[in-house]
């Protein structure tokens, strides 16, 4: 099965373009110190708010720091937050979804009501609220985004689990006397992996968006650590003077999120059972 998916992936333009951008960004993030012309924290008060030039490709900010270098370093923050937050969401969402779908009845009812309630809160405000009570830093941001992103995933996994557990091989596993945990994780889990992967890929994109929004509002990654969101904050502060402070970090966010969305939609096509053949 995965072989077929791999062959389809190689032919899917959406997924390929998304994947190559993501790989490129990952390389940028890993080798950031080698690729940046300046130290992202180094201030140069003589070159404050200078517009893009040969020395400073994307200009400098209000403290004379090189925006290009800061954006490259910002890649690290965005990718890390995206991955860790969605990692947390996948773990919680999958477990709750599996339990809810497999045991059904009362447990299902209670868990799904809980999901409904979570979905009722404007997620962004819930995150704002929690961050306000905790200390705003990158760890709390990742955890809180993760803790608020799982309900959709749980619903998805539950739906898949409901249909899979009716199939013969699950009854066979039950008759063989396999433990419930084994059935859930060895026999059902692999079958729900495809939709989870699609939804998680799209989720990384929206987690990056949320992080940048939080940092933009001053509730995410705190300065002087460079993140795309907090570079944009100074963009807003100097909106009349320095357009480059707004334009470049935003473009970075756009491209990154777009890459994840492309990959996610591409994967959706790849995993779609209706598009058989080849």
């Amino acid at each position: 099965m995965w072989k077929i998916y791999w062959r389809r992936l190689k032919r899917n333009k959406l997924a390929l373009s998304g994947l190559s951008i993501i790989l490129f960004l990952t390389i940028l993030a890993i080798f950031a110190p080698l690729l940046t012309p300046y130290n992202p924290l180094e201030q140069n008060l003589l070159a404050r708010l200078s517009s893009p030039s040969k020395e400073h490709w994307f200009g400098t900010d209000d403290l004379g720091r090189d925006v290009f270098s800061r954006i490259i370093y910002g890649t690290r923050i965005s990718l890390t937050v995206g991955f860790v937050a969605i990692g947390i969401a996948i773990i919680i969402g999958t477990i709750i979804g599996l339990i809810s779908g497999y045991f059904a009845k009362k447990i299902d009812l209670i868990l799904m009501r809980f999901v409904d309630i979570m979905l009722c809160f404007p997620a962004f405000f819930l995150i704002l609220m929690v961050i306000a009570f905790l200390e705003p830093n990158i760890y709390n941001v990742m955890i809180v985004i993760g803790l608020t992103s799982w309900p959709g995933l749980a619903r998805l996994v539950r739906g898949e689990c409901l249909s899979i557990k009716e199939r013969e091989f699950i009854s066979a596993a039950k008759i063989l006397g396999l433990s419930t945990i084994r059935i859930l994780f060895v026999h059902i889990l692999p079958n729900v992996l495809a939709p989870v992967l699609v939804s998680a890929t799209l989720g990384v994109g929206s987690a990056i968006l949320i992080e940048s929004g939080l940092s933009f509002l001053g509730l995410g990654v705190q300065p002087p650590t460079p993140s795309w969101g907090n570079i944009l904050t100074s963009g807003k502060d100097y909106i009349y003077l320095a357009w480059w402070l707004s334009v470049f970090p935003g473009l970075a966010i756009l491209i990154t999120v777009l890459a994840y969305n492309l990959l996610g939609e591409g994967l959706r096509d790849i995993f779609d059972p209706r598009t058989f053949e080849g």
Partner: protein
Amino acid sequence: MIGYILRRLLLMIPLVIGITVITFLVMHLAPGKPTDLVTEMQVKVGAEARERLKTLYGLDKPWYVQYFNWLKRLTRLDFGKSFKDDRLVSKKIFERLPATLLLNISSLLLIFSFALPIGIYSAIRQNSLFDKGMTVFVFLGFSVPTFWLALLLMILFGIKLGLLPISGLRSLNWDDLSFLGRTWDIVKHLILPVFISGFTGLAGLSRYSRASMLEVIHQDYIRTARAKGLPEKQVIFKHALRNALIPVVTILGLSLPDLIGGSFIFETIFSYPGMGRLGYEAIMARDYPVVMGVGTIAAFLTLLGNFLADITYAYVDPRIRYR
């Protein structure tokens, strides 16, 4: 129909309880008691405020007593008084609510009146240039950080072109304006915030109504309508549209939390005098009573929106109405 509405109302009861529990929990989530936090972070909130909080939340009592007290006050919409200016939280919120509703309802109207035609047109012209253009638009809509788009539009229309105001809801010379002038003034102030807060929803709903329409036009009853000799226009607008609308209405209800959540960020960017900015400022100032009040009201607004969506859903789908 009435039975259906009652059933929906009954189903909402656990949701209401859940919302209150979560709000209550978040309040107690902070390391230590909310009172400690307040006083640590804000020096000007002194011992007096700490005492007030203590009595307000009854922090010396067991948690279930606290919870029921909180519920009791909730039914009277009593969220206590703001730390900042000592005014009633409910009053502060209701002052700001109309502006927020104006913004969100305008965005909903924008979303609905553009997304549906766009989605339907690209569905019936599947794979046309327009359809492909829409797909690109949808991808951008999902990927663009809207607050950044807001900044760009502010730079373009507000600063470079000077066409639109970029903050607030009223101009400085508001008092001197005629009625028409005032209306126009508000409209001008609303254009950018409404467009920005509707942007993601617009992309999402266009895509969704396209998918829904595509599914419907491949149904048997559309073939029947054609076989009857109906002109294509009637096939699309009479037979396909109503069926395609059914799932779209549901998704509209589900998109409300995002819309309301978005107002916290957009109202702040545009210095828009709504509930979202009130909430944001309260968070930054650690003004707890206001934060809790705004959070609860936002959740209930979402719930109300979902309920309205359910009723509309039943209205368009006779299979729900007559069971």
